[in-house]
């Protein structure tokens, strides 16, 4: 940020406050690391479907385990809100071995997302990103045709298994969880949420799946730099067609991934922390690079109108500058965040060829604050994986 642009921000926050304390963004630009064997380039652009807003994309190489039979798939959405690599069957040309259950039947997964599900076989790959490798890692291949979608899966909603529905060739889940499901899916019986299936010819049935067979956050399987990631994206002050940044693997494992002055925010067992807005705390709040806007509360609480043609975006008459406070799930530390909400209809109609919008926002009903990709612009955001040690304590946590 240029100094001239910083003046109004400082003034708006109070002369006595330092810019760094006002909104958490320093008046100095965040440093974006571009070199190192643990650094992967990412870009925010319109994505492989050509119409994404605020999606951070990268490429991932998958190989048949232990072989040089590989494919590099681009247009993969970087998602700190989930864990696991998922690739559309339609984007995958390399042949990967299916995962087999103990009785020899192939394994498939149904993964519910907010508005639907991904379905398809679990296969095994060496995942290569930058100089890092996750060897023999389970991934999900998103396909409705390898095995028929079980009723219990389609009952979650709508399939996200197409480029049109996903807007990406796949998802790279690099969130706080080491696996997508965890202990619940290991169990058998009514406590199993029904994500993993084995698929004999007679049809797919829910199966208990060990932690090592579940689809993992690939970072957790790297030989080194495996305790988390940093997303580094530049500040954005106006709509843009694209911006470039980095995904850096490891936290405090190399000279290029130290926490530095970042504040560590512990999260709870469900991956949430607390955002306070207008003196009201919302304990199901979270950071998520895979959400494409700043989604929070409702019109009746914020007083900001939703768009007449799209109730999932806010459309204030003029851009609103707001403030909230994020705190660790344990209550402290905490820090203020300032953010802006623009009129989404105007953003899109006035900038139809752009894909980067730092003040795109919408309502989020019951789930607190969903700090999507615009939160990451101008901040280096650390995501530490559960159970992994870092110089600033054991994950899970976020830091920025």
């Amino acid at each position, binding site marked *: 940020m240029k100094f001239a642009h910083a003046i109004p921000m400082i003034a708006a926050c109070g002369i006595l406050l330092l810019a760094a304390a006002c909104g958490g963004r320093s008046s100095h630009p965040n440093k974006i690391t571009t070199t190192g064997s643990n650094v992967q380039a990412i870009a925010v652009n319109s994505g492989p479907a050509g119409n994404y807003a605020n999606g951070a994309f990268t490429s991932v190489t998958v190989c048949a385990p232990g072989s040089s039979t590989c494919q590099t798939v681009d247009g993969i959405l970087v998602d700190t*809100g989930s864990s696991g690599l998922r690739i559309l069957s339609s984007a995958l040309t390399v042949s990967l071995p299916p995962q087999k259950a103990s009785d020899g039947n192939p394994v498939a997964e149904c993964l519910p997302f907010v508005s639907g599900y991904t379905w398809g076989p679990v296969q095994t790959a060496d995942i290569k990103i930058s100089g890092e490798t996750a060897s023999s890692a389970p991934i999900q291949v998103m396909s409705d045709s390898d095995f028929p979608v079980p009723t*219990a899966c389609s009952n979650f909603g709508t399939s996200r298994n197409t480029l049109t529905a996903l807007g990406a060739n796949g998802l790279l889940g690099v969130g706080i969880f080491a696996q997508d499901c965890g202990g*619940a899916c290991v169990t058998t019986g009514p406590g199993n949420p029904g994500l993993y299936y084995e698929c004999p010819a007679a049809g797919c049935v829910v199966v208990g799946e060990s932690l090592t067979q579940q689809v993992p956050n690939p970072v957790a399987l790297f030989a080194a730099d495996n305790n988390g990631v940093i997303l580094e994206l530049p500040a954005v002050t106006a709509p843009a067609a694209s911006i470039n940044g980095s995904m850096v693997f490891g936290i405090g494992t190399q000279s290029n991934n130290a926490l530095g002055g970042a504040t560590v925010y512990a999260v709870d067992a469900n991956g949430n922390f607390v955002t306070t807005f207008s003196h009201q705390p919302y304990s199901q709040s979270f950071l998520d690079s895979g*959400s494409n806007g700043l989604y929070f509360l409702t019109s009746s609480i914020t007083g900001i109108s939703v768009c007449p043609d799209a109730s999932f975006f806010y459309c204030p008459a003029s851009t609103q500058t707001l403030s909230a406070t994020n705190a660790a799930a344990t209550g402290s530390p905490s820090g203020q965040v300032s953010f802006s909400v623009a009129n989404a209809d105007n953003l899109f109609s006035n900038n139809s060829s752009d894909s980067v919008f730092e003040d795109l926002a*919408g309502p*989020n009903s*019951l*789930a607190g604050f969903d700090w999507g990709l615009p939160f990451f612009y101008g901040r280096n955001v650390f995501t530490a994986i559960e159970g992994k040690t870092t110089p600033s304590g054991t994950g899970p946590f976020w830091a920025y």
Partner: protein
Amino acid sequence: MNKWRIRKCHGNWATLCLFAGILSALLIAAPAFAGLGEDVRSVQADQAHMQGTLRTTQNAAYTVQEIKSPTGTIVREYVSASGKVFAVAWQGPWLPDMRQILATYFEPYQKAVQAQGNSRAARRPLMIEQPGLVVESGGHMRSFAGRAYIPDMLPEGVRAEEIR
């Protein structure tokens, strides 16, 4: 909310609970649909489907039937004085069976989701605000929350914010 009280299966409620138990036993073959827009009896079917435990609370305008699944996910069904489920809300590590809790509104819900597959691809919370159906769904892997209600069926004086 101190105006609410929790009904438990002892004291004056024992007879009612016994009745509820018999009713639920009779309902094994009963409702084809359960959940939103259906009769209060459908709550028992939802409980059976989720293999969950049921807790009932009530205030002046409606009753809340809260089903806790062994997976940790909680579904709350809001029942009007006339015995109809006018709203459902959910919260927990896993998304509930949306077809089960939205019942006959599941198909309109799916159509609305697909209609939003718009010119701007995106992953974001779901907001469906139609005259006859509101569905709001948010969260992330291992933490979901949402609600659905039929605006015309909200009892007088009940605000949507109460559904959570």
